[in-house]
């Protein structure tokens, strides 16, 4: 009986797992984080439909959790891969959760009593969580995790937990899974804006990244959907988006376009402008790449809403006691503008996941110069890696938006299914 292992449970991995399991092939879905969902779960809305991201993702997450043929392994990472197509043996390392997964009901009583607050990785660092926590309220599997690095062992959670699921001791486990084929969907990492020190991210409080803004405008995020200046806590009167931060940048070795930032900035600008019509919203860009279905219309809609598209890039963000200063040339008129926005959003690009080089070595697959996974052919075979039986989906291949990630998840699923099916009929 052929199984399939899907590594990475973002939207591409979820889609691949659902499609393979729909054919009756057992799927093991490996996820490093305590919940599945990936980056998509962090986003507020999706373009071009303005659908709430979680509202369209969480039904899929629940489908995965309820599917009889899908086994979710959270807090897990692939250790090594042996064998070849049809007979892979995948060793995974399961990090301790300090929770009995079979008895935890996800009621959240422990979260209420926990006295420790830590910056939440899921909120891109702008919100807090407890030392025993769910990354977000719709986590799948719907159980908590205890963070031993920040737990002070006060003991409150052990006492409050009805089923007694909180463990004092837990250890790493190793699991070996058989697989006919493997789908790699490990996603991307956002560009670290501190590598462009001229923009002052984390030194100027009113400069945030696009991911931080997503969490801020998300109704279930740390500010309850309100845009706040980090310096004063007040709603800003003017916002400037700076595009291509960490994309199309030769000195940083990131020559590629990140595909989503233009649409993401337009989407966030629309959401902000709809809620705050008086707010002055400007997008500084070099080229607007609204290339997909319904995208150009979306761009036009943003312009009609009064969002200002300024073709020109600031080279740095300066600050004095009155606030931020941006020097920008409107390259359509050659006019120099000195802007004083109250909030600046850096549209940070996508890069290969930080763990990808290490993972590629363990998987025995090749990477490109940019750090993304190399596929058999850039146009005609975008899902096969150079090692037979291992397929790749989503943003592990190249920066992609959600529709493209879903499509590549589906196509990798088809290939992985073919290998598993051959094994079963043989």
């Amino acid at each position, binding site marked *: 009986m052929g199984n399939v292992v899907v590594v990475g449970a973002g939207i591409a991995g979820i889609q691949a797992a659902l499609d393979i399991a729909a054919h009756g092939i057992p799927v093991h879905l490996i996820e490093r984080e305590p919940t599945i969902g990936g980056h998509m779960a962090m986003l507020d809305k999706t373009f071009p439909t303005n659908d709430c991201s979680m509202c369209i993702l969480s039904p899929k997450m629940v489908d995965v959790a309820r599917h009889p043929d899908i086994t979710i392994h959270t807090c897990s990472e692939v250790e090594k891969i042996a064998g070849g197509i049809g007979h892979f043996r995948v060793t995974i390392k399961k990090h301790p959760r300090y929770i009995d997964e079979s008895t935890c009901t996800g009621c959240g009583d422990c979260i209420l009593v926990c006295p420790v607050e830590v910056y939440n990785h899921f909120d891109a660092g702008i919100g807090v969580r407890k030392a025993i926590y769910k990354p977000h309220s719709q986590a799948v599997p719907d159980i908590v995790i205890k963070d031993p690095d920040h737990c002070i062992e006060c003991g409150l959670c052990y006492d409050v937990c009805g089923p007694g699921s909180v463990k004092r001791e837990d250890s790493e486990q190793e699991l070996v899974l058989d697989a006919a084929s493997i789908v790699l969907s490990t996603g991307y990492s956002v560009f670290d804006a501190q590598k462009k020190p001229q923009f002052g991210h984390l030194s100027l409080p009113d400069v945030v990244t696009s991911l931080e803004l997503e969490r801020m405008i998300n109704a279930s995020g740390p500010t309850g959907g309100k845009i706040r200046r980090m310096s004063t806590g007040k709603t800003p009167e003017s916002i400037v988006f700076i595009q291509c931060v960490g994309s199309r940048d030769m000195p940083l070795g990131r020559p590629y376009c990140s595909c989503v930032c233009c649409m993401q900035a337009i989407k966030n600008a629309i959401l902000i402008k709809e809620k705050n019509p008086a707010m002055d919203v400007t997008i500084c860009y*070099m080229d607007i790449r609204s290339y997909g279905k319904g995208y150009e219309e979306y761009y036009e809609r943003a312009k009609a809403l009064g969002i200002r598209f300024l073709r020109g890039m600031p080279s740095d963000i300066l600050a004095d006691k009155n606030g931020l200063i941006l020097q920008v*040339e409107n390259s359509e008129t050659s006019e120099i503008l000195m802007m004083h926005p109250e909030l600046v959003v850096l549209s940070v690009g996508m890069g290969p996941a930080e763990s990808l080089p290490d993972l590629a070595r363990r998987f025995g697959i090749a990477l490109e110069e940019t750090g993304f996974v190399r596929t058999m052919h850039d146009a005609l075979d975008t899902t096969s890696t150079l090692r037979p039986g291992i397929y790749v989906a989503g943003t592990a291949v190249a920066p992609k938006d959600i529709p493209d990630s879903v499509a590549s998840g589906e196509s990798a699923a088809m290939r992985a299914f073919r290998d598993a099916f051959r094994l079963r009929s043989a």
Partner: protein
Amino acid sequence: MARTKGYPEALEKKLHDQRYYREDSNPEFTTKVKGISRTIAHMCYQCGTCTGSCPSAPRSTYRIRNFMRRAVLGLENEALTDPDLWLCTTCYSCTDRCPRDIAPTDVIMAMRNLAFKRDIIPVNFLKTVTAIYSSGHGVPNNDVNRAAREKLGLTRDPPTTHMYPEYLPAIRKIIDHYKLKANADRIIKEREG
């Protein structure tokens, strides 16, 4: 043409005159600029980060992005006859910030070289040549500086040709080799009589 420093009227006028035709373009110019500047000028995608970093831009009509565009399009006359060419302070901010790894400052220097071959150069630049020829310095030392240096515990003159005038002939030899002084004198005489 009289140089107007008004803004934005002067800018308005410039903008009205921004249509170019095929005969305006000299592909050789792009090659020459790349050769002299040793930078990949043709790779510019006109994002405008250079003007965003330019300290000269908010104070004048000088737009480094515009000169990069002229380099790409081979607009030789446009580039070389524009008096803004001489407003770059060569601070190299644009070179530091260019996302294409181009050195726009070096493009400007290449264009200045090419302009000088056509005798296009402001007289004040030529006076700098004369100053270097006579003293070894573009900005020779003066009594105010000497006093300031003394106060800082330094020698009254820096350890350059000011302190060692015996090296001046060597500097003059270099300048004469390129006929820089002769050309400068000729142009100054033509302009100022």
